[in-house]
Every structure is written in structure tokens, then in C-alpha cells.
């Protein structure tokens, strides 16, 4: 039987691949082609900012390794009724618009502790928005560990610290590596929030790229972007190497020391609690407090316009993304061509890892050559960094659905499109909604890539940067406050969809 349906399916896949390659992947890595053209020299200025970027990323990763693992461990192993709230709080920095977060942190440390823009503030800020990645990935991998391994260890005489060292740590090591990679690359690439706390003397490479792009120094920006992208890729490869080791045999234990460490849980909780409050939560929320003190509700035409632009972009990007993300996710999760599926999956990872300002620069170069409308380029740029966010959770959800469920529906007489709509789609709907919310929020709050692309069109986060540069802090604060509230509503929606 000549199958129309098969033809149709191939057509959908072809369109999806074409879309992914031309709109998402190629523009993102386009800047690498500059490496073959011009001469590559690193100016002393660029060398300086790179040094700062790597230093910050390194310190932040070290701090996160310690506190992130400790948090995740305590979080999984406590049965507090406040756990759900803790869970929400730790996620908040993930979806608060970065510019708003940066401003909040700047205001908190500046007003109370008189820490001005510079290295310390950059580090403090980066810890806040990277620690959720660390905690999330470690918690996810701790929760996968069979609980009876710990029970077995307990019956064999291990104290809780011994259990942690000899059983859990080796088993959730991969989660730690993933968390560290995310922390390092996010710190290396973050732009919007960092702009709020960087000074002219101390800035990171992504901020430098945006400045270069705006002052028209294209070759230097290209070099900086290439270096950032390559180092992100290097970190990814290094991580793959680290996750290869699966076997850990232990020969020694220090029962006395480890038992006394196990008994220190009260002090540990105190340290973790204060860290969470002073370093993470209060600086993040300070913007709300600030607005109560300096209430300045202004809604001029420009702010309204920016809101409309931002929401418009976020909405269209999510919608366009969804059309292609679902077939793409289905292909990655279900294709019999595993090599191709893996290739596409790692291409998504690469796009996610490319530092946003480098990505923005790359996109601006790519689409700018074709002389597109600026708004259109913005939409393309946002598609590029939101698309993987849409695809990833849907892939995970489809992989989670046992293929036998689909097969049994087929045996009961459903045709393949009916299986898709009546079986698979309802099961993966929460993931689709969660992915959409993440993509929408990311588009709404993204600063780095947007700044690198935009000249005249101002999204809301670009407007915040502008206002802060013009020292109109109160106005910027109010916009941040509004964004913050929107983020909060979305967070609650996200949690609700995860539950069902």
C-alpha cells in the first residue's frame, strides 16, 4: 500500500529539520566562520575581560559545588512541610528577568552594605542565578538513587556522612557534573544582570561584546564570541569525559571523624539557612521592598510600548517554536535512527550553551546580511535560544511514556494519528506547557542576545538597562517589580502543571 501518511510524516520531519538548521542552529554558530576570515588577535583589553570572566565562573562554580550539593542533599533528606516553599524559592532566580535580578542585587548590596559595582558584586550576583541549576540537577540525580542503597549502608554500619561519601556522592556525581557545567557556562555567558553590576573597569566578556557591537568594533566582538563559544564547548566535552567513570571502590573509612561530621547537622543547617537567606533570597526579593520604599508607578508610552513588544515577541516565539518543537521532540525520542536523533539532541545542547551575547552577535551578523527588519531579527534571535527549552522537556516526557502504551492503543484499533492525539498528547501535555512557560519567560527576560541584536526596538529588559544607564533607578525599579510579579505568577503556573 502506498502510504500517504508516511510521506506526510517525512514532509513534517523535513520541514522541522530545515527550520532547525537554518533558523536555530546555523545562525547560532555562524560567528565561528569569522575564525577562517580575518586575523585573530586578542587585544589586551579583551584578555583582561576574559580573565575576569573565567575567574568569576571558576569562583562561582566552586562556591556552588559546596553549597549546591549541601542544599540538594538537605533538601532531598528533609521531610519539612515548608519543603514545597523552599522548592519554589530556589527556582525563582531561574525565571526572574535577569535585568531585574541584577538591579535588585545591585540595590541590596549597594544600599545596605555599600558594595559598589565590581568583581565582588559580579560574583555575588552570579551565585544567585546559577545555584538553582546546581541544586536542580543534583536534586534530580539524588532522587533517582534507590533509597534502599542508603538503608543497606545503614544496616552495614555506615553513619550518614559515610553514606554520603561512599554511596550517594558516587551515584549522583553525574548530576554534580551537569550542575557544574551549567553553572560555569551560565556564569561565562550571562549578560543582562551582569550589566547592572559591572563597572567600566571590571566587566565580563559578554558585557564587553555588547559594548563592542554597539561601538561597531565587529572583528573584536567576533573574536570574543568565538572564544566564549569554544570554551563552552570545551567545558561540555570535558564534562562528558568526567561522567564516564562509573566505578568507585572504597578501601578506607574514618568512622569516628565521619560520625562526628554526621552529628554536625544543626550547625550545617544554620550555615545553609543563613547563606540561602542573605546571599540568595533577600537580594533577589529586595526589588519588591525597594518599591515599597520608593513607590513610583510610572507607565509612560515608552514603557507600555516595550511591554507590548516584549510580550508580542515572547508569544510569537513560543507559538512558532511549538509548531516545530513537538515533531522535533518526537523524532529525537522515538526515531529508530538513533545516531541522527543523538546528533540533533547534542545540537540543541550546543545552542543552549552558546553564550547569549555571542549568540546575539552571531545572529545579528547572520540575519543582518539579509537586511531583515529588526523586529523580525529579534524574533529569530529569540527563537534560537528558546527552541531548545521547548524541545528538551517534551523529549524527556515522550521518552517517559512507555512505547508499549502506544502499541496497545494500536492493537485496540486506533490509527497512528489517533494514538498521537488521544494517547501521547494528553500524557505529554504538562511537559509542553512547562516548556512553553520556560520559553515564554526566557524570551521575556533575555537581555544579552537582545542587546546584541537590537538598535531601535527596545524590549522591556533592554529598556531597564537603558534606564539604569541613565540613572533613572526608581523607574527601572518599578518595571522590575512588575516583571517580578509576572515571573512569580508564571512560577506558580509552572508548579501547578508539574503536579498534574
Amino acid at each position, binding site marked *: 500500500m502506498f502510504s500517504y501518511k508516511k510521506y506526510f510524516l517525512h514532509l513534517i520531519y523535513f520541514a522541522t529539520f530545515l527550520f532547525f538548521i537554518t533558523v536555530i542552529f546555523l545562525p547560532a554558530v555562524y560567528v565561528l566562520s569569522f575564525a577562517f576570515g580575518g586575523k585573530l588577535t586578542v587585544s589586551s583589553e579583551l584578555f583582561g575581560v576574559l580573565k575576569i570572566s573565567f575567574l568569576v565562573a571558576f569562583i562561582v562554580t566552586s562556591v556552588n559545588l559546596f553549597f549546591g550539593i549541601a542544599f540538594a542533599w538537605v533538601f532531598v533528606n528533609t521531610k519539612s512541610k515548608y519543603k514545597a516553599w523552599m522548592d519554589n524559592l530556589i527556582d525563582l532566580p531561574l525565571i526572574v528577568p535577569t535585568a531585574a535580578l541584577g538591579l535588585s542585587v545591585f540595590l541590596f548590596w549597594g544600599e545596605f552594605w555599600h558594595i559598589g559595582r565590581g568583581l565582588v558584586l559580579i560574583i555575588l550576583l552570579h551565585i544567585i542565578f546559577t545555584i538553582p541549576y546546581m541544586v536542580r540537577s543534583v536534586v534530580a540525580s539524588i532522587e533517582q538513587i*534507590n533509597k*534502599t*542503597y542508603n*538503608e*543497606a*549502608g*545503614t*544496616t*552495614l*554500619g*555506615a*553513619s550518614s556522612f*559515610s553514606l554520603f561519601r*561512599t*554511596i550517594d556522592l*558516587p*551515584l549522583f556525581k553525574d548530576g554534580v557534573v551537569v550542575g557544574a557545567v551549567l553553572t560555569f557556562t551560565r556564569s561565562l555567558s550571562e549578560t543582562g544582570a551582569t550589566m547592572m553590576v559591572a563597572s567600566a573597569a571590571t566587566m565580563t566578556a559578554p558585557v564587553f561584546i555588547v559594548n563592542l557591537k554597539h561601538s561597531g568594533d565587529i572583528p573584536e566582538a567576533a573574536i570574543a564570541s568565538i572564544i566564549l563559544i569554544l570554551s563552552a564547548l570545551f567545558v561540555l566535552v570535558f564534562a562528558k569525559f568526567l561522567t564516564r567513570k*562509573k*566505578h*568507585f*571502590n*572504597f*578501601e*578506607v*573509612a*574514618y*568512622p569516628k571523624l565521619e560520625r562526628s561530621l554526621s552529628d554536625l547537622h544543626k550547625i550545617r543547617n544554620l550555615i545553609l539557612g543563613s547563606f540561602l537567606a542573605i546571599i540568595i533570597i533577600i537580594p533577589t526579593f529586595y526589588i519588591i521592598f525597594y518599591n515599597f520604599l520608593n513607590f513610583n508607578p510610572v507607565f509612560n508610552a515608552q514603557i507600555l510600548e516595550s511591554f507590548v513588544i516584549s510580550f508580542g515577541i515572547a508569544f510569537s516565539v513560543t507559538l512558532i517554536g511549538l509548531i516545530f518543537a513537538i515533531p522535533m521532540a518526537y523524532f529525537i525520542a522515538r526515531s529508530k535512527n538513533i545516531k541522527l536523533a543523538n546528533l540533533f539532541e547534542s545540537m540543541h545542547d550546543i545552542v543552549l550553551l552558546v553564550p547569549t551575547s555571542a549568540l546575539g552577535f552571531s545572529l545579528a551578523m547572520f540575519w543582518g546580511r539579509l537586511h531583515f527588519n529588526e523586529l523580525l531579527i529579534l524574533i529569530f534571535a529569540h527563537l534560537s535560544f528558546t527552541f531548545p527549552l521547548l524541545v528538551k522537556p517534551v523529549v524527556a516526557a515522550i521518552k517517559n511514556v512507555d512505547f508499549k502504551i502506544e502499541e496497545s492503543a494500536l492493537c485496540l484499533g486506533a490509527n497512528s494519528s489517533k494514538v498521537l492525539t488521544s494517547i501521547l498528547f494528553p500524557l505529554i501535555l504538562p511537559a509542553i506547557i512547562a516548556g512553553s512557560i520556560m520559553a515564554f519567560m526566557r524570551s521575556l527576560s533575555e537581555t544579552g542576545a537582545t542587546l546584541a541584536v537590537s538598535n531601535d526596538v527596545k524590549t522591556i529588559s533592554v529598556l531597564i538597562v537603558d534606564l539604569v544607564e541613565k540613572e533613572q533607578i526608581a523607574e527601572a525599579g518599578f518595571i522590575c517589580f512588575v516583571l517580578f510579579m509576572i515571573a512569580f505568577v508564571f512560577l506558580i503556573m509552572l508548579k501547578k502543571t508539574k503536579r498534574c
Partner: protein
Amino acid sequence: MPNIKLKKLTKKFISINEATKGEIIVAVNDVSLEIKKYSYNTLLGPSGCGKTTLLRMISGLEEPTSGKVFFGRKDITNMPTQERNIGFVFQSYSLFPHMDVWHNVSYGPMIRNNFSQKTKNYIHEVLKMVRLDDRANAYPNELSGGMQQRVAVARAIATKSPLMLLDEPLGALDARIGTALRYDLMKLIKEYKLTAIHVTHNQEEAMTISDNIIMMKRGKVVQSGSPKEIYDKPNSIFAAYFLGRCNFFRCEMVDKNHVRFQDAVIELPKNNSKKKVVLGVRSEKIHIDSAVRKENIKGTIEFVNFLGDKWQYIIRLFDGTEVNALKRTPSDLRSGDKVSINFFSDNIFIFDEPKDFEKEKAV
């Protein structure tokens, strides 16, 4: 190793099941027991009867809601599991996936920093006992289910603790391997002079390995004793039903030592003062007679099943009661044949008529 005493041990859970959310479930209900040293004990009962919870409370993995656990005279109710010096074999084995066989088995001594040459020799000896000395460098995912089970047992024995707690240790194996490993387990426990408490829902397993069976139902101990004691003198319909095969006849008393079932008058082995009783007769004690007499219990053969070493007859009595009879020798009986059955009064168990007969049997 002292004896183990449980005093009024109770465990209540709050249900997290969607249907019964928030309800309090009594998993173990006021259990008092004494476990003799060097004996092999099984906790036998249907799933959900609380046997695993009871075992976990002895190990300290579960905290009792009330009641106490004693090792000898010492109250260990609040002692952490790490300090109880026990060996525990989990149903899923819980072998550490990132360690090889040697390091799994030596984990107990290692973590207590008791890793002398003597201990190492001992671990070698234990591995030899479970026939895994040549697989010491293998990782758990490279071993078969039976091998994994033996590693789990070796790991528990290597702790040198005198008490072995086994939570359905043979449950995950296929029947043939499980049966073979029963004897290994029994031998090991006796060889190392250990006290064992073994949780199972498999009555045949319990019969073969135990010195002492503790039978549980709905969080309570129904009966405990040697396999022969429980088989020959079950104290309840449930005990008779769950261990071995038993048929039940609900009768009315005629006089103090005679009952009536259908038209048959049956003589009891001892006097009874109740008005209604339930008689229990083991399947192998039922005699089938092809001659149908008025004064016997009558029915029709529904199935004749050949089990290899014996024949099983399922007989439907005229009042609907199902009777299950086992015969060692072949006969001419076919399904559909009308037969009568009888049994000796020595082979009768007498139980009081319960409020709800089906519920009494229900697991």
C-alpha cells in the same frame, strides 16, 4: 547473641494513597514475640500483613509508633540502625552498583574501620561459601539474579553480626533457583550459628527452612510454632487455609460430639458446646468414594488435574462448597462423575463459626 523480644510493638502510617489519603493505617498492631537465639524464623503472611514493617522495626529502619524492642535485656528501641550490629538482606538486594563484589561484601567491615588481614581472610572465606570467590571483581550488573542474591547474603554475613534479617530474599528469583538457594541459605545460617528472621509470603519456603514460623495477618500474629505444629494444629481458619491446603465445611451441631453436613452426620474428635462450627480437613485426608450413599457428603467432580506425583480432584458439593482432594494413586474417576467424600474424625480441625466466613479466609 541473646534472644530478641518484642513488646507491644505497633506501627501506624498515614496513608498517602490518593483513594485513602490521610487515613491511619495500622501496619503492625500490638505484636509481642520472643525469638530464640540460633533459630531460623520466618514471618509468613499475605502481602500487606505487616511482616516487612515488623522486620524493619527490628532493624531500626522503621521507628515504632509504640512498643519496645529488646536484644536480651537491653532496650534498643531508640538505638540507631548503624549500632545494632545486624545483617540485612533486601528483597531487591540493593547491591551498590558502583562497587564490585569484593567491595560490596567488604563494605561493612570497611565502614567500621575493621579491615585487618584477618577480616580480609574472613571475607574470602564467606565469598567461597557462596561460591563467588572467582567473581570478586565483577560488578553487580554483570551478575545473574541468583549470584546477586548470594552477594547480598555474603555482604550481610561479612559484618559478623549474629542476627540476620532477610526481607523476601528469594522473592525476586525464578522458582527453580529460589528453591535451590533456600538450602544454601539454611546451611549458611546454621554454619555460622546465626539467628535468622526471614520474611516471606511463600508457604512452601516457610515450611522448608524454618525452625519456627510466625504467621501474620492484618498486623497481628495469628499463630507461631514449628511448621509441623502449625500444619497439624492450626489455631484458626486463616492458619489452616494459608499453610498447606485445607477444605472447610460449615456445619450445625447435632449433639455435643456430632455435627450435620448435608445428610451426613460426622463424629467430632472431641466435644464441643457451640451451636455452629466450621470443620477443616486437609486435602490429602479426603477420601473419594465412587459409590454415592445417602449418609455421606455428596458432590460432582469438576476437574481432575494431574500434578505429576499426584492427582488433584476439584469436587463441587451440592450446596456449592468446593472441595479439593489429593490422591497419590490413579483412579477411574472422571470429571462429571457423581461421588461421595468422607474423612476420619482424627483428621478434623474444629473452628468456631466466624461472623464472616469469606473474610476470615481472605488474605
